[in-house]
């Protein structure tokens, strides 16, 4: 029974885009004139979302790095072996691509399971039996970046204005390569490794929320507006919507370091949560 709920979580994550993301894409499509490249791309994306959901086929062929966040108190019920069995079963059904390559030998782990794959975090405070899954493809992951302030080339100092400059630079460098319109998770501070993880976790936030910190909330709104004024548009072919959301968080840093870390997520923002009972 438990395997079924986990397999369902994987299938739904791979094949059904979250409502908030789909709504944002619909809004973006309405803003573009008929016949424009941007509109053609967005209409195709919307058609794709409906087809994938209806046919239970993957939204994108790159079914990504699978990262599970599991309620720590439920570890005995939901051990790594159980998650791996679900991943292997979902791969067999074609809901996941054979997407896991040994970095040394180049050999494929055909069931997507290997030491360290999928990625599994057990953590406190998620709620009893809660499992969150995010599937992030390589096209978007390749566009994630980390800056170290001060950055002279950007005129970016160690303050929120410096953060703004880094994030806008990241958007301009990414163009359409990450499959725009995308979503940014940003971490200010932290150490390099933690910051990438924190930035990625921001991608779980619903698109319509904002940071509880008033300054960061303001910065999120400003960067979103400015990024969308760059004209990069869907798939980088030009248009009004380059980003669907910007989510910023902070982590303490040591005096010597000031990192700005940007996790880029493609429009196919496959994230989902389920309660495994």
């Amino acid at each position, binding site marked *: 029974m438990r395997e079924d709920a986990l397999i369902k979580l994987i299938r739904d994550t791979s094949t059904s885009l979250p409502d908030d993301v789909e709504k944002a894409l619909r809004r973006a499509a309405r803003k573009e004139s008929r*016949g424009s*490249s941007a509109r*053609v*791309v967005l209409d*195709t*994306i919307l*058609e*794709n979302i409906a*087809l*994938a959901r209806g*046919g239970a*086929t*993957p*939204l*994108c*062929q*790159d*079914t990504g790095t699978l990262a599970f966040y599991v309620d720590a108190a439920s570890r005995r019920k939901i051990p790594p072996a159980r998650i791996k069995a679900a991943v292997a079963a979902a791969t067999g059904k*074609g809901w996941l*691509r*054979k*997407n896991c390559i040994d970095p040394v030998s180049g050999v*494929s782990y055909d069931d997507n399971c290997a030491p360290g794959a999928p990625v599994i975090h057990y953590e406190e405070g998620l709620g009893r039996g809660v499992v969150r899954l995010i599937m992030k*493809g390589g*096209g978007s992951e*390749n566009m994630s970046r980390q800056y170290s302030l001060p950055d002279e*080339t*950007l*005129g970016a100092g160690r303050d929120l204005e410096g953060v*703004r*400059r880094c994030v*806008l*630079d990241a958007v*301009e460098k990414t*163009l*359409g*390569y990450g*499959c725009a319109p995308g979503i940014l998770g940003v971490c200010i501070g932290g150490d390099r490794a933690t910051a990438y993880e924190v930035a990625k976790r921001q991608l779980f936030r619903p698109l319509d929320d904002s940071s509880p910190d008033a300054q960061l909330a303001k910065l999120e709104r400003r960067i979103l507006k*400015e990024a969308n*004024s*760059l*004209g*990069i*548009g869907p*798939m*980088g*072919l*030009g248009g009004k919507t380059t980003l669907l959301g910007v989510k910023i968080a902070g982590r303490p840093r040591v005096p010597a370091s000031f990192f700005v870390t940007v996790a880029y997520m*493609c*429009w*196919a923002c496959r994230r989902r949560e389920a309660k495994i009972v």
Partner: protein
Amino acid sequence: MIAGLSYPYTEEQVRALKAGDAVRITGLIHTGRDKFHKWFADGKPVGVDFKNGALFHCGPVVVREEGEWRVKAAGPTTSVRENPYEADFIAASGVRVVIGKGGMDARTLAAMKKHGCIYIQAVGGAAAVAAHSVKRVEGVDFLEEFGAAEACWHFSVENFAGVVAMDAHGVSLFDQVAAVAHKRLHGLIGK
């Protein structure tokens, strides 16, 4: 206005299209990505005749059901990785259409202009739509050598959607967008 593009893709058909045109492709297309291009660059035979054909940068999800190949997902992969090889491949093979995402470099754009070839941006991530337009798998080469995601699949497609992003006249939509974005960023951060 959406232009139709049907196999065999002639030089005339391809030269008539301009960057920014929406197109629907019907006919034969072949997938080929990193290992395929490396294989070609090593001087090995690529198996099928690409003359007036189409090359799709794609690593599909294909499963075997009831003795037949079925395509579950077939969106484009990032094309820049093939920049070192594509101009030579266009010159040697006579391919008329390259399908992928993100665009390619100036050398490839020049080869497209010289030999009569276009680059079509398929919609990244739209794997279900792309798979839906694949009506039949005609065959596969290099399945053993490259693995399923990198093999050279031969698809018959109907109304495969894309946008001409690099045309056969030296115009790249990506370059235009990048120039505008760069200028506007300068306006925002003064750098």
